[in-house]
């Protein structure tokens, strides 16, 4: 196991050779203690057991030293106390579906998997809330309440596998974020375990509790403040009617203008998705959905609500698109046609595999009014860095997903792609946007935080972090930039997941 040792971050005494013996015995003692707390079967130390926890859904990897799977909040609390006493960093992990390396143990340490805390504790239909543990899978929440006519709104593309705990950590969104907001808008209260093992409730069961919104601080903190062990989330009533419309454009400019105009007209679609010509080509090559190949862009718009509203909103959207220069606008006549329209969008990422063997997906956000100029900037960057970019994204909330297509076997290609990605994010920040819409900062983008925030901003954030976690024990190395850029980030090749909907 010694070859797995990771230099400790923070105080950084772990790399010191003279301390190594002491380290090994501390580690042995910790393993023993953890076994006492959660049982032998749920403390992993062997290479062949922990190596699977070195990765998440991103292209980054780092080996954990110990993986522990507590079964309840008491065990979580004891595990944290033990790890802190031994001076080990703690990396919380949900389902490990993140795309920014948030669950990758950058500085080694103890990975705490919350996968066994997976009970749906209770549903209160009268107050429209559900109480659940962090290991519950996102889609299971909606499945559990669908019969009663309810749903849980945040719907990341990975919702069949991602956990509520991971969603809370990343403040995750999805296509329906546009109408219903992101995770923080649906989390009413969380039970958390802090660095000293204390168990506290933040927020409550009602939408607005007096005092600081500490539940809001916790949501989106990417595991750097503590570990959520229970959450109360909002449930929503299933809508009466759903209508979908496809608008076809001969120029990207008029398509992005249509998005701006739709927003300005006060229409709030449930989803508003865009695909560019490159993506359309991929979709039509892979599993044809009937999008016109000669179009420069298509918009997919969906409205939900009572029938009186959906009809009116659809009519308005139709007019706005036509005025913005759409060459054709057509509404799905029935559920089958609606599914066919969505099938192309949902299969778009997978279809990119018909164009190139690898891709790197970016996750920038811009104000909707800046969409036209940002899309022009993305096209310019593609030209400048000599890369091909396919755009398929949540246009409605200005959340871009430019996919840089490449072949990792070509020497230097990956470096050029990462530079182009950075340039795109810079362009987003330059127009008042942000580095991430739904994937989080994690390890991937921590060094870009300085583009968005001043030194003072980052210091203020750090003070918040230290108020919860004075020794930076939780998920060290995430979100915040490091002065020295890391030399050994291991990036694994990413193939196109067919049908993956990001």
């Amino acid at each position, binding site marked *: 196991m010694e070859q797995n040792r990771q230099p400790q971050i923070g105080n*950084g005494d772990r790399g010191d050779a003279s301390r190594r013996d002491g380290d090994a015995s501390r580690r042995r003692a910790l393993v023993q203690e953890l076994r006492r707390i959660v049982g032998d079967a749920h403390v*992993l130390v062997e290479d062949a057991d922990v190596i*699977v926890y070195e990765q*998440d859904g991103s292209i980054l990897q780092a*080996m954990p030293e110990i993986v522990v799977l507590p079964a309840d909040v008491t065990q979580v609390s004891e595990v944290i106390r033990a790890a802190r006493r031994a001076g080990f960093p703690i990396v919380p992990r949900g389902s*490990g579906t993140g795309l920014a390396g948030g669950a990758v143990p950058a500085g080694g340490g103890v990975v705490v998997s919350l996968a066994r805390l997976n009970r749906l504790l209770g549903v209160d239909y009268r107050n429209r809330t559900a109480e659940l543990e962090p290991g519950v899978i996102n889609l299971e929440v909606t499945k559990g309440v669908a019969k009663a006519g309810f749903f849980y709104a945040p719907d990341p593309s990975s919702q069949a596998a991602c956990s509520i705990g991971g969603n809370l950590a990343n403040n995750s969104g999805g296509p329906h974020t546009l109408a219903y907001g992101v995770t923080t808008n649906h989390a009413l209260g969380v039970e958390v375990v802090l660095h000293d093992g204390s168990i506290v409730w933040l927020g409550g069961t009602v939408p607005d509790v007096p005092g600081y919104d500490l539940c809001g601080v916790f949501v989106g903190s990417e595991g750097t403040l503590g570990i959520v062990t229970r959450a109360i989330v909002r449930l929503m009533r299933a809508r009466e009617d759903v209508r979908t419309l496809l608008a076809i454009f001969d120029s990207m400019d008029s398509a992005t203008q249509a998005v701006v105009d739709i927003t300005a007209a006060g229409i709030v679609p449930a989803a508003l998705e865009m695909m560019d010509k490159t993506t359309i080509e991929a979709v039509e090559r892979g599993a044809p959905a009937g999008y016109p190949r000669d179009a420069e862009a298509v918009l997919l718009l969906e409205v939900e609500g009572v029938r009186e509203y959906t009809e009116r909103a659809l009519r308005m959207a139709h007019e706005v698109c036509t005025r913005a220069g759409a060459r054709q606008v057509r509404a799905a006549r029935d559920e089958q046609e609606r599914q066919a329209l969505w099938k192309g969008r949902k299969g778009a990422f997978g279809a990119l595999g018909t164009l190139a063997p690898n891709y790197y997906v970016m996750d920038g956000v811009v104000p909707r009014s800046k969409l036209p100029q940002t899309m022009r900037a993305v096209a310019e960057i593609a030209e400048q860095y000599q890369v091909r970019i396919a755009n398929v994204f949540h246009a409605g909330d200005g959340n871009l997903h430019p996919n840089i297509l490449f072949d990792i076997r070509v020497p230097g290609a990956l470096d050029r792609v990462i530079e182009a990605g950075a340039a795109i994010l810079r362009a987003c920040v330059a127009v008042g946007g942000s580095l991430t819409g739904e994937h989080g900062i994690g390890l991937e983008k921590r060094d870009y935080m300085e583009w968005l925030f001043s030194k003072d901003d980052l210091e203020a954030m750090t003070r918040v972090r230290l108020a919860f976690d004075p020794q930076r024990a939780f998920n060290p190395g995430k979100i915040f930039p490091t002065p020295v850029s890391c030399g050994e980030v291991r990036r694994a090749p990413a193939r196109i*997941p067919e049908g993956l909907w990001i």
Partner: protein
Amino acid sequence: MHLPLQRTEPHGPVVPGLQIPELDQCVHCGLCLTQCPTYRVTRLETESPRGRIHLVRAAGEGRISTGERFAEHLNLCLMCRACETACPSGVKYGRIAEAAREVIGPPGSALSRAVARLAFTQLFPRLGRMRVLLRLLRFYQRSGLRAVARVLPRRLREMEALLPPVPARFFTPEAEVLPAIGTRRARVGLLNGCIMPLLFGDINAATVRVLRRNGCEVVIPKGQGCCGALNVHNGETTAAKAMAKRNIDAFLAAGVDAVIVNAAGCGATMKEYDHLLRGDPEYTEKAARFSALCRDASEFLADLGLTGPLGPVDMTVTYQDPCHLAHGQKVRAQPRQLLAAIPGLTLIEMEASDRCCGSAGIYNVTHPEMSRTLLDEKMTSIGRTGAEAVVAPNPGCMLQLRYGAQRAKAGTAVYHLMDLLDQAYQAAEDDAGRARA
């Protein structure tokens, strides 16, 4: 502050047998996790498809050894391939797991590994021996000897309980070619199989009757043998390849329009003979031709369209998707279509009908605990439907579900789809007979 991201660098020998192209397609998105039965039970990444793929990749690169821990994780896999259904990237997990098992060999203790090897190389390829063994088993079950089993150690007693009663008669076709009834619509080959004619002879007879009633001339080539599925799933490919070639030769010589299989596990393997025999110049083309001919009985009949009058079978059933039919062959709609065609029969779907029942070849013997956990969950789902019977067109699932019904003390009957179709045709014939009288 310097923050290096490190990994365990390769420190062992690389394993070329594990460096297969199927691995490159996995982007570790994790969408397979919640569909994996063993992950659902353990919540451990090592017992998930994504975890196992990563282990194979790491072992191939020499970053971890292919020792005991590695083998344990790979062997806890049921090979149900539910992950292939869930995967947006089209990763062929089954091939990755089979490659790994080729490296680590069959599961279990040294003794059980030796027994398994013996069975794979000496029993399945030689069906005459299988018949003799089953006759002995039948004798044992009917003599008073079974009482002696009570003194066996617990583990052996449990294995003994899994043994199905051997029927009085094995299935022996009356001729190699059986004519179609009515207008001939196709000439089809039928895989007789290894266990099917011995333990489920009635189902093979029923399959032949149903095919003939649908205008199929049925050829049961004498030269055929066991399909080799158990060998392939447990990493034994030498005997398996010889078995595949034997079947390919027998069926291609018969000049049939399709090769019909009524055991899902066999069908999935036979449809992939082309992969098993890749790199064998003499058989590459033949294997591809053969694999393209293979059809599950339900798949073939639904595509052909049922003919002739079906009488009522008054029964409420639920349907268990055999893993190697739903996940391995992507056949889901056709069996349900056929069930819907039977008058009087009501189908009530259970929750997660495509989740493994824990049978998984010899898995219920090698991993009894996990197998029973999954079986109990399955019996609960079946119980909730209130159906009086469960339909599962695969012998392994049928044995397991019968064992489950017995354990749960539920009176749930277990049928093969061909059983019920045969009953429906029989009912129509009886009606016609009565009408004439």
